[in-house]
């Protein structure tokens, strides 16, 4: 309608919007694709063993800085371990934790949200209450407390984050299910004699999947940031695993003399999270829905 009335105004604006969205999509896709590739090919890409200590070559600066050598492109850490190799293995840790956390929390949140949204009534009351209670629990504190009491391990971090970060999945799954539950094709499936389970799995789930994908990107970015924060505080992924957060924590003592030790893993973390968020934003714009809070 509006295009017919004001073609000269709306069309370029829309095109410009699309251009912006596409550049976000391309940039986000490139970043996430690149990091995924690095994570998968890690052992073949890393020039050195990320755990090999060489105390004679401690805190060698990156190759482009004074005192750097081409042998260690990104320098070495306080124990003489090759920083590039550790960074590459760190990408694996971030990606694996991000993906597995999202799978866990996505399963929990989607199940709760779809059940609440579809059945309504008492079931929905319970789901809404669970979401409210979950939101009032401070995530970082609880995650730290559990890891602190049980001892830090890779699996525990995934489990704790997965069990805590389901709230947004539940909120979005619930509201989108409510929107489509009374639509004709759902009613048709019901009339055709489909069971409730088959309606939920075959009619509802595929139609809310795109919205859940947007949530998945947001939660993955959050999970990666939280893992880094937990590891930074010493209660996440245990040493000597090269989690980016742990690399920053270990390098903290030296940051005033050689700031690059915290800049390199920090930039990697920042760029990866930025890429995931760009991808999520582009996805959301394509769907034309606003899920931002």
């Amino acid at each position, binding site marked *: 309608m509006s295009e017919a009335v004001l073609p000269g105004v709306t069309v370029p604006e829309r095109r410009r919007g699309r251009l912006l969205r596409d550049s976000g999509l391309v940039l986000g896709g490139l970043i996430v694709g690149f990091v995924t590739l690095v994570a998968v090919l890690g052992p073949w890409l890393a020039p050195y063993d990320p755990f090999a200590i060489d105390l004679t070559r401690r805190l060698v600066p990156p190759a482009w800085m004074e005192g750097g050598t081409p042998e260690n492109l990104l320098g070495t850490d306080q124990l003489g371990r090759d920083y590039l190799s550790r960074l590459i293995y760190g990408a694996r840790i971030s990606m694996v934790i991000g993906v597995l956390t999202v799978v866990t929390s996505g399963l929990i949140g989607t199940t709760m949200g779809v059940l609440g949204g579809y059945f309504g009534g008492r079931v929905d009351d319970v789901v809404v209450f669970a979401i*409210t209670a979950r939101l009032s*629990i401070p995530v970082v*504190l609880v995650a730290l407390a559990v890891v602190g*009491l049980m001892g830090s391990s890779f699996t525990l971090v995934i489990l704790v984050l997965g069990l805590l970060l389901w709230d947004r999945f539940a909120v979005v799954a619930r509201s989108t299910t409510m929107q489509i539950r009374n639509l004709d094709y759902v009613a048709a499936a019901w009339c055709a004699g489909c069971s409730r389970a088959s309606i939920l799995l075959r009619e509802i789930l595929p139609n809310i999947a795109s919205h859940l994908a947007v949530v998945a990107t947001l939660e993955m970015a959050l999970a990666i940031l939280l893992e880094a924060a937990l590891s*930074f505080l010493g209660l996440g992924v245990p040493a000597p695993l090269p989690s980016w957060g742990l690399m920053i924590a270990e390098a903290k003592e030296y940051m005033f003399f050689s700031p690059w030790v915290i800049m390199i893993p920090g930039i990697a973390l920042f*760029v990866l*999270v930025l890429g995931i968020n760009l991808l999520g934003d582009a996805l959301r714009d394509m769907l034309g829905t606003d899920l931002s809070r």
Partner: protein
Amino acid sequence: MARFLLRRLVVALLVAATVMTVSFLLTRLSGDLAISIAGPNATQEDVDLIRRAYGLDRPLWVQYLDWMGRALTGDFGESYFFKDRVSNLIAERLPVTVSLGLVGLGIALAVGPPLGIVAAVRENTWVDRAVMLVALIGQAMPSFWLGLILMIVLGLNLGWLPISGTGSWEHYVMPGIVLSFSAIPSLMRLTRSGMIDALASDYIRTARAKGLSRLSILVKHGFRNAAIPVVSIAAVQLGFMLGGSIVIETVFALHGVGFLAWESISKNDFPVVQAVVLVLALIYVGLTLLADLLNAVLDPRLRTA
């Protein structure tokens, strides 16, 4: 209105009770506390002694009811490490965390909504895009890393602010800036989308047609309507910030409840951990309740809901 308030209050109380149970179970299900407290070099006798001394040999439900009963009267027991009442420890440290939260929220409110308004007014121009870029950068910035960078730049290179510690107001500036980063993107986006909707509405056209000044239209007619969700989100964000302050307090060695929690976690001082989780959760519940009330006051349409 009364029914709405009552309903919200009942839900808040139920949530509080759930959180109390969760924070109790959290420490009990995470392994044998007596072994954790005794440490790695303890003998079986030591462990048994600790178990009896702290009442950990009683059935779980007895411990639960005992803890619930005491917590309701504000008695969280005694800290194992600090040799002080947990309630004293928290009362001592809470003002630091609340001040930090308020500084963070103040900075976030000074930056987020104004940028959101500017972006909405200049929608689809480079200004709008620059503002959205700021939001994206803020979202992707790891808070502890930003803290370290500020320490290097503002603390060491420029020497403007103390690097870490608690004491003067200056110790709150850097942590406050870092904390505000977690709230700025959402406040900005919310203001922007609210303003875009408001500016496209009929009452703005009417106001323009009446010949009101641009500023008065933006502030009195536009922002007043866009502000309703922003106010409630700001209250909720403050709750999130207090919960998330543990990372920032630890980075800057700012001795608030977050730092207290971190110290207690590393020393297996579980009565303190339990109490901090509970206190922060209760503050959050209180703030969401406040947010709903503010909403009802600002938007009369919600009162009948």
